[in-house]
C-alpha cells in the first residue's frame, strides 16, 4: 500500500452571542415555543427590509483580529439564492465578493510541534429556520425562531493533515471565540458547527486529491471519527483503483460511516449577487482601533499572567484557562478572597471532580465566585475544616447554597472548646490502651488511628491540626 496524506480544510459556522438578530430586533435566545421569536423581517414577509445589527460587525471584526486577519474596511453583503422551506426569503444574506475578514491564521500544538493553520476568510451571514418532522401526522413543520440569528463562517485553508490537528484547531478556535465573548460556542445547541472538506493524496504529491464535504458536524468526537472514517474510505477507493467523487456526504456517527448526499453535478447554482437592500459596510480606522483596544486578554497571555501574578504552576494555569468560565471564576474568586492558590486548588481538584461526575460542560459551569471565596475564608478562619468544606462545596456546586448560612443552619462549624477536645481525647486514649502501647513501642502509625477516633468522637467538627497536637501532647506525657 502507498503512503497517503490527508488534506483537511474546515468551514466553521459560529452563532454570535448578540442579544438580537442580524437584521431585526428579535431575540436570539436558544429554544422558545416555535415561531415566537420572529417578526415580518426575519420571516421575509413581502415589503420588509433588513437593517444590519452593528454588534454583528463588531463581533466579526473582533474574531478577525484575534485570528490575525486583515479587515475589509469596505465590505458588502450578497444574496445566496436557493429554495428551501426553512429559508423564508428563498435567499440567504451572506458575503461572497467582499467578506469582512481575510488572510489570517492560528497556531496549534501538534505532536510534531507548533503549526499554523491559515484562515482564508470570515464572512457574516444569517442562519435559517428549522424543519420539524411530525411522524405522528406525517407532516413537516417550520420553526422560524433561528431565522436571522447572526453567524460568522470561518473558512480555513486546507492546512490540516489529521483528525488530531482538526480537533486541536477547533478547540483553539472555540476558546478564542469564547474568550472574545462573541459566541458561547455551545456545540450541543449548534452554536458552533463545522463542515469538513477532506481529500487524500499520495505523500509528496503536488496536486490535491478530489475532496468530499461532510456538513454540519457538531461534536469534536464525531468530527474526529468522521475524519478517520472518510480518510479510510477514500484511501480504500484509490487502492482499489477507483476514484473519489466530489460530493457532499453525511456522517452517521451511530453507524460510524458516511453516506453520499449529492454530487457536484447536482450542486446548486446559488446565483449570488450584491444585496441591494443593504448599503456597503464602511469600517473606519477609528472604529477598527476602538474594537482593537477593547479586545480582551486571550488565553496565552492569561496563562503567563496567572503564573506571574498569582504564582500558580503553569500546569494549573493551563487547566484553569482551558475554559473562559473557569478563568473568569478563578479571577473573580481570587480577587474576593485574596487566596489565588486556594482558589486554584478548589478548581483543579473538587471542581474538576464534580464536573466530571455531573458531566457538566465548562461553558455551563455556574459556581458563583462569591460563594467559593466565602467558603475558602470559612476554612481559613478555622470555622470549618476541609472535610466539611468539601461537603459544603458540593452543595454550592449543585444547589447554589450560601456556605456561611449552610454551615450555620446545619451546625457544621468546628468545635472551638479546647476542654471538650481534651476530655474526648483522654477518653479515646483510655479506651485504646493497645494503640497507646503500640505508639510508645515505636509504631508511629498508631497515632493516626487515635487522631481518627478522636475526630470521629467529635463528629468531624474538630480542627484536625488541634486534634493532632492534643494527642501528641497526651501521648508524650
Amino acid at each position, binding site marked *: 500500500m502507498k503512503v497517503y496524506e490527508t488534506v483537511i480544510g474546515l468551514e466553521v459556522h459560529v452563532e454570535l452571542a448578540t442579544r438580537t438578530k442580524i437584521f431585526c430586533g428579535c431575540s436570539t435566545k436558544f429554544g422558545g415555543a416555535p415561531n415566537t421569536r420572529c417578526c*415580518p423581517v426575519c420571516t421575509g414577509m413581502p415589503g*420588509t427590509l433588513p437593517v444590519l445589527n452593528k454588534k454583528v460587525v463588531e463581533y466579526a471584526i473582533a474574531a478577525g483580529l484575534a485570528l490575525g486577519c486583515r479587515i475589509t474596511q469596505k465590505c458588502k453583503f450578497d444574496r445566496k439564492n436557493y429554495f428551501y422551506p426553512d429559508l423564508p426569503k428563498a435567499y440567504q444574506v451572506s458575503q461572497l465578493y467582499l467578506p469582512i475578514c481575510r488572510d489570517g491564521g492560528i497556531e496549534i500544538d501538534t505532536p510534531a510541534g507548533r503549526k499554523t493553520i491559515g484562515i482564508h476568510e470570515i464572512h457574516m451571514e444569517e442562519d435559517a429556520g428549522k424543519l420539524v418532522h411530525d411522524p405522528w401526522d406525517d407532516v413537516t413543520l417550520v420553526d422560524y425562531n433561528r431565522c436571522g440569528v447572526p453567524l460568522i463562517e470561518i473558512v480555513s485553508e486546507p492546512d490540516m493533515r489529521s483528525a488530531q490537528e482538526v480537533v486541536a484547531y477547533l478547540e483553539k478556535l472555540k476558546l478564542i471565540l469564547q474568550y472574545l465573548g462573541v459566541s458561547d460556542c455551545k456545540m450541543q445547541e449548534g452554536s458552533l458547527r463545522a463542515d469538513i472538506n477532506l481529500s487524500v493524496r499520495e505523500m509528496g504529491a503536488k496536486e490535491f486529491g478530489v475532496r468530499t464535504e461532510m456538513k454540519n458536524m457538531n461534536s469534536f468526537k464525531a468530527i474526529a471519527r468522521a475524519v478517520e472514517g472518510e480518510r479510510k474510505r477514500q484511501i480504500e477507493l484509490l487502492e482499489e483503483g477507483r476514484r473519489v467523487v466530489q460530493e457532499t456526504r453525511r456522517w452517521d456517527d451511530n453507524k460510524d460511516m458516511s453516506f453520499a448526499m449529492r454530487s457536484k453535478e447536482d450542486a446548486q447554482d446559488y*446565483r449570488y*449577487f450584491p444585496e441591494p437592500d443593504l*448599503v456597503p459596510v464602511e469600517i473606519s480606522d477609528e472604529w477598527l482601533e476602538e474594537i482593537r483596544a477593547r479586545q480582551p486578554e486571550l488565553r496565552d497571555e492569561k496563562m503567563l499572567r496567572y503564573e506571574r501574578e498569582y504564582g500558580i504552576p503553569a500546569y494549573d494555569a493551563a487547566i484553569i484557562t482551558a475554559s473562559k468560565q473557569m478563568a473568569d471564576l478563578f479571577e473573580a474568586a481570587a480577587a474576593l478572597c485574596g487566596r489565588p492558590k486556594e482558589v486554584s486548588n478548589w478548581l483543579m481538584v473538587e471542581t474538576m471532580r464534580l464536573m466530571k461526575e455531573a458531566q457538566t460542560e465548562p461553558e455551563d459551569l455556574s459556581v458563583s465566585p462569591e460563594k467559593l471565596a466565602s467558603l475558602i475564608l470559612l476554612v481559613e478562619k478555622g470555622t470549618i475544616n476541609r472535610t466539611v468544606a468539601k461537603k459544603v462545596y458540593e452543595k454550592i456546586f449543585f444547589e447554589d447554597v450560601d456556605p456561611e448560612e449552610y454551615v450555620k443552619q446545619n451546625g457544621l462549624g468546628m468545635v472551638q472548646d479546647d476542654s471538650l477536645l481534651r476530655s474526648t481525647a483522654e477518653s479515646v486514649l483510655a479506651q485504646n490502651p493497645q494503640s497507646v502501647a503500640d505508639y510508645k513501642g515505636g509504631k508511629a502509625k498508631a497515632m493516626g488511628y487515635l487522631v481518627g477516633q478522636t475526630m470521629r468522637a467529635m463528629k468531624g467538627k474538630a480542627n484536625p491540626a488541634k486534634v493532632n497536637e492534643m494527642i501528641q501532647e497526651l501521648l508524650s506525657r
Partner: protein
Amino acid sequence: MEVTKWGAKELSDRIKARELSASEAVEAQLAQIERKETRYHCYTRVLAEEARERAKEVQRRMDAGELADSPLAGVPVAIKDNICTKGIPTTCSSRMLKNFVPPYDAAVIERLQAAGAVLIGKLNMDEFAMGSTTETSWFGPTKNPWDVTRVPGGSSGGAAAAVAAQEAFLALGSDTGGSIRQPSSFCGVTGIKPTYGTVSRYGLIAYASSLDQIGPIARSAEDCAAALDVISGTDLRDSTCIPKESYGYSKALTGEIKGMRIGIPSGYFGDGLDPEVERGIRKAADVLASLGAVVEEFELKAVDYAIPAYYVIASAEASSNLSRYDGVKYGYRTPKYEDLQEVYLKTRSEGFGGEVKRRMMIGAFVLSSGYYDAYYNKALKVKALIKQGFDEAFQKYDCILGPTAPTTAVKLGESLSDPLKMYLGDIYTVSVNLAGLPGISVPCGLDSRGLPIGMQLIGRAFGEKEILRAAHAYEQTGEYLFAPCTE
C-alpha cells in the same frame, strides 16, 4: 360643488376652512368611484367603510386643533396595491398574493395616517409592477379615462387613471423603470419619482430593490410636492433611505424659474419618437424659455444600452425578490401536489402571470454561474456610465427636459403580443432609475387624437425642488385639462 375636481391641497384647505367635512370629502370621492369604476377599473379594492371610519377620526383630530400644518389632512388618498396596508389585502395584482394580508403598514402609510390622510382604496397595477400597460394584472386591465380602448400605462396604471378620472385626488405609485411617470404621461396627470433613498421602501413589495421608489401621482406639481412633504424622510427600517438636510418641497414652488438652466438631450429626438410628442415637448420648451429659463440642446452620453442594462438588473433582482412566493408561508398554493418540488413548481407556474415569469427567467439566467460577468456585471458598468453621463450634464444644467414616453397611450392588447416593443417604450424613463435621479412627468398638451402628451423633467440627485419648481411654473401657464369622458 365639483369636489372631486379640486386638488388635494385645495381640498385639505377647504376642510380646514370648514367648507366641508372630511366625511363629506370621502362621500364625494366614493360617489365618483361608484359612478366611474366599472368603466375604468382603477381599483383592486375600495375601502369604503374603513375610509368613512377614518374620516370621522380625522375630523375629530382636526376639530381638536390638530393637523393644522398637514397639507393632506382629510384628503382621501389611493394606494398602489404593492404598498403594504395592515389588515388590508395587498395583492400586487397577482394571483400569487390575492389573499395576502400584511400584518404591518408600510412606512408611507404610517406617514400618511399621521398626516390625517384617509386611505380610500388599493389601486390596480401590472402584476408585481412588471409591465407598462396595467394589462398584466390578474384582476384585468385598467382603462385609460381619455379613451377606454387604450391602456393607462403602467405599472401604476390604476393610480394615474384614478387621478385622471377623479376617482382619486392623490395616489401613491411606485416607479422602478418609469412606472409612475409613464402612466402619468398617458393619463394626463403629474407624477414624480423621487431620488432613490428619499422615500422609505419599508412595506413596498419589492420588484427591483435597487431601483424601486415610491412617489405621488396627482393633478398638479403642487399636490405632488405636498405629498412628498408628507411621505419623504429617513426611516431606520430602510438602510437605503438617506437622510437629507431639508425636505420642504412645497416651499420650493415659487413660480420663478428665471435663469434656470434646462438642457434637452438632442439624442432624445431620434427614431421611434412620435412626431406629435416631439412637437409637444418643443412647445413646452418654448413656454419654459418664455418664463426665463435658459433652454438648450446638448449631447447626453451613454444612453444607448440603458434598456438592456435596466432589464438585466431589474430582472435579476426580481428573480431573487420573487423567489419567496413558494406556496409555503402565505399567498397562493397549488391545491394538488405530491412533494415539495411539486409545491414549488405548480404554485409558481399557476400563481404568476407570463410577464412575471419571463422576467424571473431572464433574471435567473443573467445571474447564473458563467453568465454573471457577461450580463449582470456588464449591466452594472452601463449603469455607472449612465450615472456619469448625467453627472456631467448636471454640471451645466439644473434640469433635463425630454419626453416621458415615445408615444401617447397605446391601444389595449397591442403591447402584450410584442414585449420587446413594450420595453422600448421605457427608453426615456429607465436611465433615470439606473442613475437614481428624480424625474417628474408633467402634462403638456394633447396629440391630434386628443390624447395627453407628457414631458419629463429630470433633476440631479435630491434635486426634486428644481424639477418641481419648473413643473409648477409651467403648469401655471395653463388650466389643467380634465379627461373628457369623465364629464
